[in-house]
């Protein structure tokens, strides 16, 4: 930096300012307009919280929020358990085929739309009734892959000889896990769970395909999508602001717990 000329330095700061303006303007406008008094979705006419109040009285949104919470909590619980066990199993073995790697990596890169139609075809072939339970089954697929990758990153620096030492000292496998392995990986497990929870709360397409017809299993993103298709309203702005705040809080927390692992 010290080597650079003032002109270069000014250019670099300008680049940074422009990029951050690009990243934050759309979000800032959205959040600002959620506090807009007027009914026009894009013209500012004074501060008000009335759109947040009107959300609280909207039965469709509340039921969608409840559905989302159920799906996210249950799928996160299952995925955290399975993903953590998977991570320990994979890292314990330390020699694994690329087939196994691909299988664990696949849910993270497969396009949502492809997994969505695959699960819809699968469930309808089996004559499964679609509903919240099928969304949960589907969400666990990608959630467990993300939990596994976060926990594995933590296990990379894990010294397995302490597990052997614990066993040599007569501890059972369960005791060793509870007293040795778990305390080491716990921050990563919680970070993975928070990540899974957020992904599940935000996921739209797979839920859309596996929810089945009818309003009973509409999730929040499905509700938001339906509202957006209908037009822009200040109410969506308010709802979007709340959902965004929840996601960002959960993921910031996750990142704190697990410094740097997710970012890599």
């Amino acid at each position, binding site marked *: 930096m010290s*080597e650079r000329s003032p002109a270069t330095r000014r250019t670099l700061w300008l680049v940074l300012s422009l990029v951050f303006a690009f990243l934050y303007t759309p979000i800032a406008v959205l959040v600002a307009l959620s506090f807009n008094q007027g009914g026009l979705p894009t013209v500012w006419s004074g501060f008000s919280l009335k759109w947040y109040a009107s959300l609280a009285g909207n039965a469709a949104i509340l039921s969608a929020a409840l559905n989302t919470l159920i799906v996210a909590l249950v799928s996160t619980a299952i995925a955290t358990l*399975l993903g953590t*066990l998977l991570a320990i199993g994979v890292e314990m073995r330390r020699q694994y085929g690329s087939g196994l790697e691909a*299988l664990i990596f696949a849910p993270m890169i497969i*396009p949502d*739309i492809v997994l969505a139609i695959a*699960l819809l075809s*699968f469930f309808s072939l089996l004559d499964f009734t679609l509903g919240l339970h099928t969304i949960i089954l589907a969400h666990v697929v990608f959630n467990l892959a993300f939990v596994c990758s976060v926990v594995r990153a933590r296990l990379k620096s894990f010294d397995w000889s302490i597990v052997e030492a614990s066993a040599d000292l007569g501890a059972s496998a369960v005791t060793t896990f509870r007293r040795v392995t778990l305390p080491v990986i716990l921050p990563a497990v919680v970070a993975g769970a928070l990540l899974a929870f957020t992904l599940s709360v935000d996921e739209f397409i797979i839920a859309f395909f596996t929810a089945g017809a009818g309003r009973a299993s509409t999730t929040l993103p499905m509700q938001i999508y339906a509202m957006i298709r209908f037009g822009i309203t200040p109410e969506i702005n308010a709802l979007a602001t709340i959902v965004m705040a929840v996601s960002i809080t959960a993921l910031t927390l996750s990142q704190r717990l697990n410094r740097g692992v997710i970012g890599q």
Partner: protein
Amino acid sequence: MVSQIRLRSSLLMAPALAWLTALMVVPCALVLALAFFRRGIYGGIEYTFTLENFGLVFDPLYAGIFLNSARIAGTATLIAVVIGYAAAYAIAAAPRRLQPVFLFFAVLPFWSNYLIRTYAWIVLLNREGLITQLLRWLGYTGEPPSMLYTEGAVIAGLVYNYLPFVILACYAPLSRLNPELAEASRDLGASAMTTFRRVILPLTVPGIAAGAVFVFVLSIGNFVTPALLGGGRFQMIGNLVYDQFLTANDWPFGAALAMTLIAIMLLVLTAQALAADRASGRTAEAKGGADV
């Protein structure tokens, strides 16, 4: 002992692998199989083998949509890489203690709901949105420009959504760059531009490639952005697959489209992996040479 570890590790992995097999591998295999069946007269599936669906994928109409998707995804990738690289370069050049802060705020928007980030662009680009108002404020009096529901809006949405990843991917090699290399290049008389082109850029290509592949793969299979910002007028493969399953009710053709999409993605990912292998081989060689 070793076999005991293998047994224990297998038991630990079993539930998750069973879940992935039952709810990802089998369903995807089913879609692959579906692609080779015929569509029934009333929209059902007729279980006779056919290659017609893949033939239809190469029909000019649908092949055009594939090309269109690739072009939109490619443009978004190019723009995201240019902006993302510049941003990563500027972050890597900032005072060291500020770098994590900048990086954090560059990634933060990425952590909010994808649907909402896309919706934010509708608010920005619609006929009475911020940009129109800005133009009016600057004295513009004509018709509001139509920016929403254009290809440009779709590209902007894709760039916006995936930019943070490019910044992260490019920052990693840029921050590890040895400043003495650039100095040496300058001392030897190279201009700033030549130093960048011949020294910095080649050393940071892996980051660029990783970011570019990520943006391209996620963009070409995208459904939400073209549906919301393209207004259904700029169909991409994702939307076409969606239509076959939920409106046209031609599941076998939808399955063939989805499998073609996967094939394209695998091709891109494999190409990147091979290129990365070759590049790391070259770097190792260069390092070996330097040691001598």
